[in-house]
């Protein structure tokens, strides 16, 4: 008897664990959205719903007009599953979890897409995903450009804080450009990663925040554009007075602003004084003589036409897989936008919305254009017409986080050091600099890692992986199991033919091999192009 008790207990424990898995999994009480609403922003996104609605309509009108002009037939509307996968991946960087996805598919309310957009934009995950994207833009050479590990993490944390608080975009840029202090405290690491060199900082910041390739004028006047060599060095002069102090050994480096320091015209002794790009007048004075602050006076003002254009173009590119100007950091005169009216309109809209970037996301996500299918039915149309949605390749983070959430059934990547290390290893292996979602950047090495590597091996191992383990429960039918596998990996239900293929595999398996069969089905789904992309 005394021998039997522990056995009984452990069996009971196993059942209750399983019950826990299944209940979480079926009821969805712990969806990331429900759990993590932001306290401060319960109002409609952007604070002005009517403005967002009319902006979306205006964009659709402008696109419809251009399609008419070019006799283009746009793709049909996306179905609910396609839209749901897309909007989750674009706005919060992860495929929808099974429970909210099912709820969304079964919801018959006509406003369900709009509600989903607003819900996602208010979630903490939107801030995290925005911080992910901006980290990639600001520190393409991360990890550890400063030679010290973890510097990228502090920048990420700072970025996340800005997006959680929904700091106005002009303010965000100004805070970023004037950041000083230890380089483990946020944006300062960006400046030390550029070696504090004025010409490097000028090159990077003009690309990132203005969408301009000013550095082409670094050595000679740009042959196509209005930028002169002088423009470049005048802009670089704003960053000529930064200084780096090292603190305690092994500790952070400090960045401060000095009162002296100049840039010189290449090949001469001529000091170049600071000046705003394309503005002849000298810059606004700063009471403390801080040159970086002088720059931000213009940077965040309405006199700077580039800031808002570059920002809305980036949002557009994130959502459609290509910018209105493409690439997004070459918005120069020789690279005109595909739809100048839309770019002008959205830039004005951002300024009118007092630089609330979320309202731009809200407006773009609500357009009919964003909600069209990526499935090709008609003759091919030019991609810059935005008449068919671009299929976008997932970033390494999007892939891993979706796997973690929907297959391992763990929601928070940083909650465990083991998971965080696994994620970092995967991201390092799959990382693509200058990631272009229209391409599949990986080679045989990375694909072998998908086919035989530790992530999918773990995902398909019933003893370690939450999803297949939960699906063993007796009360599921095979049809439910197959449907759930599809929802978790491809964010859609199987069609009849697919369901037949997968059911066939499951029913053929001997009773003892069923765990393996579940793992095999999961392996197939996770290795498809569909799982690696956003429709």
């Amino acid at each position: 008897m005394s021998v039997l008790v522990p056995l009984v207990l452990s069996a009971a424990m196993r059942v209750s664990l399983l019950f826990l898995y299944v209940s979480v999994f079926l009821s969805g009480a712990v969806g990331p959205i429900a759990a993590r609403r932001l306290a401060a922003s319960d109002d409609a996104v952007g604070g002005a719903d009517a403005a967002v609605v009319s902006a979306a309509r205006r964009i659709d009108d402008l696109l419809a007009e251009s399609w008419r002009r070019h006799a283009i037939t746009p793709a049909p509307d996306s179905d609910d599953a396609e839209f749901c996968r897309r909007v989750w991946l674009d706005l919060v960087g992860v495929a929808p979890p099974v429970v909210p996805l099912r709820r969304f598919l079964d919801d018959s309310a006509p406003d369900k897409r709009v509600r989903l957009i607003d819900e996602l934009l208010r979630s903490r995950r939107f801030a995290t995903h925005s911080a992910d994207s901006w980290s990639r833009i600001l520190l393409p050479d991360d990890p550890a450009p400063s030679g010290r590990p973890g510097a990228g993490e502090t920048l990420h944390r700072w970025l996340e804080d800005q997006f959680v608080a929904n700091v106005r975009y002009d303010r965000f840029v100004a805070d970023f450009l004037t950041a000083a202090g230890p380089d483990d405290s946020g944006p300062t690491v960006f400046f030390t990663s550029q070696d504090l060199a004025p010409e490097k900082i000028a090159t990077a910041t003009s690309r990132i925040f203005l969408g301009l390739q000013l550095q082409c004028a670094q050595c000679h006047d740009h042959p196509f554009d209005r930028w002169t060599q002088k423009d470049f060095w005048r802009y670089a002069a704003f960053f000529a007075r930064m200084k780096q102090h090292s603190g305690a050994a092994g500790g952070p480096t400090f960045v401060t602003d000095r009162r002296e320091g100049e840039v010189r015209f290449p090949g001469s002794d001529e000091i170049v004084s600071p000046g705003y790009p394309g503005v002849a007048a000298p810059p606004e004075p700063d009471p403390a003589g801080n040159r970086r602050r002088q720059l931000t006076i213009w940077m965040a003002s309405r006199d700077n036409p580039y800031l808002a254009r570059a920002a809305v173009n980036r949002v557009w590119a994130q959502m459609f897989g290509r910018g209105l100007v493409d690439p997004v950091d070459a918005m120069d005169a020789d690279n005109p936008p595909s739809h100048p009216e839309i770019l002008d309109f959205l830039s004005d809209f951002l300024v009118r919305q007092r630089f609330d970037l979320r309202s731009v996301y809200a407006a773009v996500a609500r357009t009919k254009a964003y909600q069209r299918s990526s499935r090709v039915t008609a003759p091919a149309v030019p991609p810059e017409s935005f008449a068919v949605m671009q299929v976008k390749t997932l970033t390494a983070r999007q892939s891993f986080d979706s796997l973690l959430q929907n297959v391992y059934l763990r929601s928070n990547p940083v909650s465990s050091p083991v998971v965080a290390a696994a994620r970092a290893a995967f991201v390092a292996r799959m990382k693509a600099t200058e990631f272009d979602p229209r391409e599949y950047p990986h080679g045989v090495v990375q694909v072998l890692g998908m086919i035989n590597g530790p992530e999918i091996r773990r995902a398909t191992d019933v003893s370690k992986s939450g999803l297949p383990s939960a699906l063993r429960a007796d009360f599921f039918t095979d049809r439910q199991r197959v449907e759930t596998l599809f929802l978790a990996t491809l964010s859609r239900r199987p069609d009849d033919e697919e369901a037949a293929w997968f059911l066939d595999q499951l029913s053929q398996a001997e009773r003892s091999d069923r765990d393996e069969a579940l793992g095999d089905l999961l392996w197939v789904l996770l290795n498809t192009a569909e799982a690696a992309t956003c429709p």
Partner: protein
Amino acid sequence: MKRSRFNRRRMMSGLGSGVFAAGSGWLPRIAAAAKVAGGKDRNCILLWMAGGPSQLDTFDMKPDHANGGPIKPIQTNVPGIFFSEHLGRLSGHADSLAIMRGLTTKEGDHGRGTVLMRTGHAPGGPVAYPSIGCSLSKELGRGAAELPDYVSVAPGPFSRLALRPGFLGPKYAATSVMARPAGEDGYPKLDVDYLQRDPGVDDNRNAERLRLWESMQKRFRQGRPSGNVIAHDTVYESAIRMLQSDAREAFDLSGEPAGIRESYGKTAFGQGCLLARRLVERGVSVVEVSSGNGLGWDTHADNFARVKTLSEELDLGWATLMQDLRDRGLLETTTILWAGEFGRTPIINATGGRDHYPQAFSCVLAGGGIAGGQTHGQTSEDGSEVTDGQMNQQDLLATLCAALGVDPWTENVAEGGRPIAIAEGDVIDEVLL
């Protein structure tokens, strides 16, 4: 000294990016070499001495100076050229080797030095420069599909960081082969990353997986034939073909005759050299083999005994590789670079060791495109400075490119659309055929 100096300004002022067909001293020879070799039929083997090998105890001996130490020089098969006594077999191939004795760089730290020598650039800037192996495999690669274009054998921790493809993108990353301790047969094991299927998945299950995968893949591709979806399909097909083909056999050294296996030495480096030969034979264009299991050549103490052991390993592996390549007619099309992250101090320290020394050290080029049987550059009597033929890592990489028939000014596009040359140094004509 004869060098090809390119006019960078003139080349960069051209509009747009791309390959510039500039006139130069060695380009006609490349054209000729290409004719002989049949275009892309060129290979590169990098022998990497992790930790920084001692030039004074290998290829730049100073027997008449106190800095020289106890290791004796021996005459090679080229009159007037001496190697260390522990490189006896290799001294029989000196007529195929060009010894570069004038290397100078600015990085004396293992991590930074490794990145510098592999990419040509110090780490830390905003541009993620690719390692030379990645750039070369992009140029030389045959996309043979069944095998990767770039394989790195037994890379240490510093090499792993420096092996990055940078702005070229992950598809140009090296396939790593990790060395594991010797098994019962006394040979270290060399395992390719992710080439082994989950041992629990048998052939039947695997076939079923692939059959179902193909059906799913085909459906999605039909509805959404965009570039990324097609590329996904293509790369997967290549990887699957590689897993199913005889290519896996290329990595299996047990297929070699026992005598050949043994002649390379029972070390990870020696077996790595044998693997390099097998891979080159099967169309892999760039292979790199590391010696020193991480930082072995970092001989701060007990330099002479440790260099002796390492040299014997090196001698066995490298000399056998030279002979084997020659016997198979591959030496003419295979260029070999021997290098580490820096050299070692001429002055012997209190613990009988030598410390980091980037000011004056040696590298060796050998095989295809190289005019062997010569030394290039010279150091002072005490070995402390370069007195002739000074060159840096960019010159070395540019010369390696030229020996392989690759224009070092071939540009790739980095972040922000900036065109960047593979190597910006001066090609040293004298060591080229």
